């Protein structure tokens, strides 16, 4: 049997040994700490080092869409519990807790919106809702977003922050980043244009599983937006402050089709 190599992941910013979690407003990139209002004012991008903190779905919509242009659709949909699923706690309890902490009925928010006066459909995932996991209702909502966009002939802009979202024709996709280490961001990428925020993790298989399965030493930027760009999977890496303008530019180009 061949010698086995050490497969432990090296965390540059490992969580403290005692298990205490770093404060969510402490930058994992440079250690700077911010008040909520400071971070919000900077679009939740670290003013010191440019680290992109995660953005909740509602906040993301506020950042992207024109003021008061967002009209939510299918907000009434809730997951049920067809299997009577029970792990450490009942599934229904987890759902209720997620709804309580995020204020959302599911891990995806969809609705009509305008960006720079250009109409579009938004489908934004919420990583805070059970890790942005895609269940029946997320699938249903995404399908409804596609249909709503197709019916009105407007582009679909989806912001994903987790795995499994299957992108369809005629959409712009935007990859945001689930920051929690070890979470796999998988993304079936059929968007006409794929943008990613700096440092976003997009890989079919997460680094830990890849390393443990293949026993290869992984490059530092494995699965990051930057490496995906190099390997031809992402059209452009767009820092959050430029995102709205970039999306608007693309919407303008795509809306011109019939002209």
């Amino acid at each position: 049997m061949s010698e086995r190599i050490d497969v432990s992941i090296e965390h540059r910013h490992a969580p403290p040994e005692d298990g205490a979690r770093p404060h969510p407003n402490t930058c994992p990139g440079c250690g700077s700490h911010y008040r909520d209002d400071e971070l919000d004012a900077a679009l939740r991008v670290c003013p010191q080092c440019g680290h992109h903190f995660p953005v909740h779905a509602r906040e993301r919509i506020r950042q992207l869409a024109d003021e008061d242009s967002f009209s939510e659709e299918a907000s009434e949909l809730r997951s049920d519990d067809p299997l009577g699923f029970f792990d450490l706690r009942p599934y229904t309890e987890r759902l209720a807790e997620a709804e309580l902490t995020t204020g959302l009925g599911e891990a995806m928010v969809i609705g009509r919106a305008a960006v720079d006066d250009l109409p579009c459909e938004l489908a934004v995932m919420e990583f805070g809702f059970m890790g942005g996991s895609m269940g029946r209702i997320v699938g249903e909502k995404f399908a409804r977003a596609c249909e709503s966009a197709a019916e009105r002939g407007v582009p679909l802009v989806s912001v994903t922050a987790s795995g499994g979202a299957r992108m369809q024709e005629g959409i712009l996709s935007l990859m945001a980043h689930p920051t929690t280490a070890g979470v796999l961001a998988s993304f079936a990428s059929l968007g006409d244009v794929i943008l990613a925020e700096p440092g976003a993790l997009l890989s079919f298989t997460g680094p830990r599983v890849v390393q443990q399965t293949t026993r290869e030493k992984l490059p530092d930027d494995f699965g990051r937006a930057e490496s995906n760009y190099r390997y031809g999977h992402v059209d452009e890496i767009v820092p959050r402050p430029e995102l709205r303008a970039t999306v608007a530019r693309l919407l303008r180009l795509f809306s011109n089709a019939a002209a």
Partner: protein
Amino acid sequence: MPPREAELRLRGQLSRLRSLPLLRGARLEGELERLQRQLEKIVAEPSDEEIWRSVELARNADRPYTLDYVERLFDDWFELHGDRAHGDDAALVVGLGRFRGRTIVLLGNQKGRDVKERTRRNFGMAYPEGYGKAMRAMELADRHGFPVISLVDIPGAYPGVTAEQHGQGGAIARSQSLMARVRVPTVACIIGEGGSGGAIATALADRVLMQENAIYTVISPEGCAAILWRDAGEAKKAAAAFKPDAMHCLELGVIDAVVPEPEGGAHSDPDEAARLLGDALGESLELFDGISGDELRRQRRVRFRTIGQLSTTA
């Protein structure tokens, strides 16, 4: 196309221009002069020296490249990166932009200006990844009904080991095949070197233009000389023999029109070169307004089927 026909067409263009009310003002005068010059050139067969001058001008290090035209001709340019499979080939750029009021998809070969950029862009020689990216862009254009503009300037597809391992030949073939199938108008212009299969991969268009001093070849003059004369130094003779210049390509029916360049070549006045190229591209696209996708495909097939047709079947 026999020379006579090309001449007739130019004469036709000239008389049309003359009869136009002076909408475009002084610019039209320049246009007339240029057409007149072209006509004189067609009537007078280009000499071997003139052909070689084209080769040199086509390769001039200061000649405008794709991105030089992009910044002058397109608004809202958004470059797309990557073939969504293996890599992003910097030798072939693709993107979305607005050209004269409509969204288009652009494909273009791109060389570098300094040593660093030349290396990064592999001297403009595309890998299969580049053709993969071009195909993705053409599919996007097809899906959304955007016309495709292709600016061709490639010494040849990259002839390296990795390129072979990644399937260079197949990539070029599939790119041509896709370009023959798309249901949107396509216009290609050779703006420098049109090097063989690597060029045709993105030049199988409804309308193929060529700048006055560009060349369109089956092989580089040096390569041809090395094979046939067994001496790459005989490139001048080779070029004179296979006549890669715009006027000869027009006569042969390989291209549809010649785009004039400013006096001295495109590099002497890139702004003017871009204006002339823009006008030619714009006029070409207008030709296909209102034609259905299926009809475009049919006409495209006829166009390429009849190039170099045997006289017995013509």
